[in-house]
């Protein structure tokens, strides 16, 4: 009897789950799936995943309906190069190899830039260490889940972590602080100061990593044989590089010039690892074939150039040319402000490079997903994928398009109407708190006055 009751309870619980499964249907919109065409139709979301996409879908009873009539639904934007959501400096610029540091340790879910990126349609971002070091810190992919309290809830679970490399002017100049020789605060200049030195730093670091890897292999072999040996030291700096050698950590390399791109490909080939993405890669169009052969992706700017000498040869056709040569190309922001309008960055590629509208949008959705190794989860609207979507009122490549709603894991994280109507409420709330504080201050001041001893002549008594 008891067992019967228990199983009955279990059944009830099960049916409760299915009854209250969170189902959302986005209806009547122009669905830009990226991978499966664009059409007027609907998307069915169940428990955070897309379950059906089509012109006609079955609407389950009790589903939450989002009417996207006259609007455009596309996959959430993915920024392959961002520095938001971190607390403190994102450059551990004191050393030329800073692979011991990890963006994951300083994720800050309260950074307002997350909300602004979200409001610009971004649902995932590759958060990178800065470019002050030949080998920089560890990186992490996040979802822009604004409102979560804990840093760990920002993390894109299951996404392969990365590491930042940087070539060219930034790593060679960052350590060479201008100072008077012999001054009290004089510091030793940081090596390297040339592009040759940058290559050397990377090679030396991987020499160390290989030796370290061998030490641990030897130790483990000895332990397995029952020998008595003290363990080698764990080195966080080299741990990350061993992970690169083992293909467990993606290399995202900041670069501009063709020569340094080719240099890094040679280094990677020599040491037997892969560059996952070249970042910025402004002269990528010159060496697109080599990038494609290495199997690397390219994440570039749409039309920024000539802001420094090593960006002199940049052209707005870069993305289109690399794409035509078979490279997976994405467009990134590298900037909290530009991050809010990556859709119009994609539009520039249509204008300059003659890339199709769908391919251009893929450069801010599906292609960056591929570059980050999460294309089975996000980047297009397909059954089985995470329901990360953005709804625009106009075509997303239009200057006039405004983000109306953004969903991550099927949950609405941004709603333009709510934001606008909520502003007055927020102001009122703020005023209330300030008034309360003011009243308290006044009360204390009065009390102090009351309690203060009255002045009287010293000999009054």
């Amino acid at each position, binding site marked *: 009897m008891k067992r019967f009751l228990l199983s009955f309870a279990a059944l009830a619980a099960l049916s409760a789950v299915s009854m209250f499964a969170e189902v959302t249907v986005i209806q009547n919109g122009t669905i830009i799936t990226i991978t499966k065409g664009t059409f007027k139709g609907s998307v069915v979301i169940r428990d955070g995943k897309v379950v059906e996409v089509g012109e006609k879908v079955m609407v389950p009873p009790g589903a939450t309906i989002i009417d996207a009539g006259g609007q455009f639904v596309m996959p959430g934007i993915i920024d392959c190069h961002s520095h938001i959501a971190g607390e403190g400096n994102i*450059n551990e610029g004191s050393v030329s190899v800073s692979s011991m540091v990890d963006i994951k340790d300083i994720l800050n879910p309260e950074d307002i830039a997350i909300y602004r990126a979200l409001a610009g349609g971004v649902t995932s971002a590759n958060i990178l260490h800065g470019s002050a070091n030949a080998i920089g810190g560890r990186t992490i992919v996040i979802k822009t889940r604004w409102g979560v*309290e804990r840093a760990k809830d920002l993390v894109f679970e299951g996404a392969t972590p990365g590491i930042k490399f940087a070539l060219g002017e930034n790593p060679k100049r960052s350590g060479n602080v201008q100072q008077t020789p012999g001054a009290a605060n004089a510091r030793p200049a940081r090596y390297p100061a040339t592009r040759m030195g940058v290559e050397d730093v990377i090679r030396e670091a991987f020499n160390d990593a290989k030796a370290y890897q061998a030490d641990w292999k030897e130790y483990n072999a000895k332990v397995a044989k029952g020998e008595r040996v003290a363990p080698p030291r764990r080195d966080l700096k080299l741990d990350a590089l061993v992970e690169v050698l083992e293909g467990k950590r993606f290399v995202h390399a900041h670069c501009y010039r063709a020569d340094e791109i080719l240099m890094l490909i040679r280094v990677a080939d020599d040491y037997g690892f892969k560059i996952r993405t070249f970042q910025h890669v402004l002269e990528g169009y010159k060496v697109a074939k080599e990038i494609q052969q290495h199997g690397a992706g390219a994440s570039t700017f749409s039309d920024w150039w000539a802001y420094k000498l090593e960006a002199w040869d940049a052209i707005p056709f870069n993305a289109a040319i690399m794409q035509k040569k078979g490279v997976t190309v994405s467009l990134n922001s590298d900037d909290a402000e530009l991050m809010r309008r990556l859709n119009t960055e994609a539009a520039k590629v249509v204008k300059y490079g003659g890339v199709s509208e769908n391919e251009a949008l893929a450069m801010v959705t599906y292609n960056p997903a591929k570059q980050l190794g999460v294309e089975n989860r996000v980047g297009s609207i397909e059954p089985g994928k995470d329901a990360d979507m953005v709804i625009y009122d106009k075509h997303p490549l239009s200057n006039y398009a405004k983000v109306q709603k953004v969903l991550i894991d099927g949950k609405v994280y941004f709603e333009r109407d709510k934001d606008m109507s909520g502003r007055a409420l927020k102001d009122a709330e703020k005023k209330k708190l300030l008034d309360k504080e003011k009243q308290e201050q006044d009360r204390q001041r009065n009390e102090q006055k009351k309690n203060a001893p009255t002045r009287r002549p010293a000999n009054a008594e």
Partner: protein
Amino acid sequence: MKTVLALLLCASGLLAETPSAIAIRNAKVVPVSGPVLQKGTVVLKNGLIEAVGENAAIPADAWVIDGEGLTVYPGLVDGLSTIGLPGFGPATPAAAAGRGGGGGGQRQAAAQTTTPAPFARGPEDRPQTSSWLRAADQIDASDRRIETARNSGYTSSVTFPTRGIFAGQGAVIALAGNERAGSMVIAAPVGQYVSTQPTGGFGGGFPNALFGVISYIRQIYLDADQYQKAKAMYAADPRGMARPPYDRALEGVIESPRILMPGRHFVEIDRNILLAKEFKQSLVLYGGHDGYRAADLLKQGGTTVLVSLKWPERARDADPDENQTMKEITLRDKAPSTPAVLAKAGVKFAFYTDGVEGRANVYKAVRKAIENGLSFDAALKAMTLSPAEIFGVSDRLGSIEKGKIANIIVTKGDLFQDKTEVKYIFVDGVKYEPAPEEPPAGAGGRPGGAPTTPNDNQGGNQ
């Protein structure tokens, strides 16, 4: 030993006579660890609490204080401070030349135990680390803050060196006016003070960013783990094995029973709970103002919190037209409710002064927590028994119990009130009279903090 001490005190003219026992009778006794006695007697002998009770026997030779209308509390404990380490500001670690004092209070400017390493190229250079530095070795009895704190009712403090990433090891000290600093130490080491504040500038050595500091702390714990394993193996059989190099930075970390890390805002609280768990360290967070948001996290992790009594306030000279964020306004509004929230959630916490000085200021800060929902009893506990528990000394400190250290205060009126008069302060059974809140500027000759005998007072001796 006690006789020697008494003789010394006599020689320096501070004490005319030392009573063998002191009894406070007919007073309201608030033991904190047990129910309040409306009319009780507390007997102090040889620096310890000899007896507590409604009918506790008063030894024949005891000096008796009539406690009619007075209340006896355990002496307050400052949960975290640099009291006893004068001038402990942000600079390179400095250490006193030797232990034991003897110089009559005026110590020489501290000698460096370490050569400053302004430029570190990585964790191997042990940047901003003085984990081996022990507060117990550095106590300077002439620190004027000892008397200031005592006047507010504090009879002990948890004192830590606070410079650098691994700043050093703390000690629980009695706020006595002892000539010998060593006799002030109640327990040491009681933990390692860790700061995550990067101090290196760009081009100025590792680490220069928060995540650099965190990676350094993580590397230290990995190194300590390996160091301990290698040392144990070597100790077991040194033959045929290269000896592990001695590393004082790791020694200091290993001998610390717990770590203190900042927990000033929610994200930091969350982060440092996770880090301490990763490092397998028992964690005490300091700061705690955002704790009202983090009660669940703190409860789950069994984390204890030192809550700063320096409540966030808007700067007096702030531009009134300046736009303030909702975050800062909310923190100012909610921070004082943190103690009440933590108490309700069952999170162990203690107060620390964090630079708030003077009886009026300290009590006002405590009242602010009480006005925001904390019970008087909980507030008192957070300033007595809880800090003792957090630092593992509740077997000797923090409440009025037989056998514990005779650190108690006697007040006229309830504690923490604006007009509370602290009448007597006993540290290690030695009686001190609090100075007036604002000592007259011209009274240069007054011997600061000199213990007095009970018969100096109207309290009466029989």
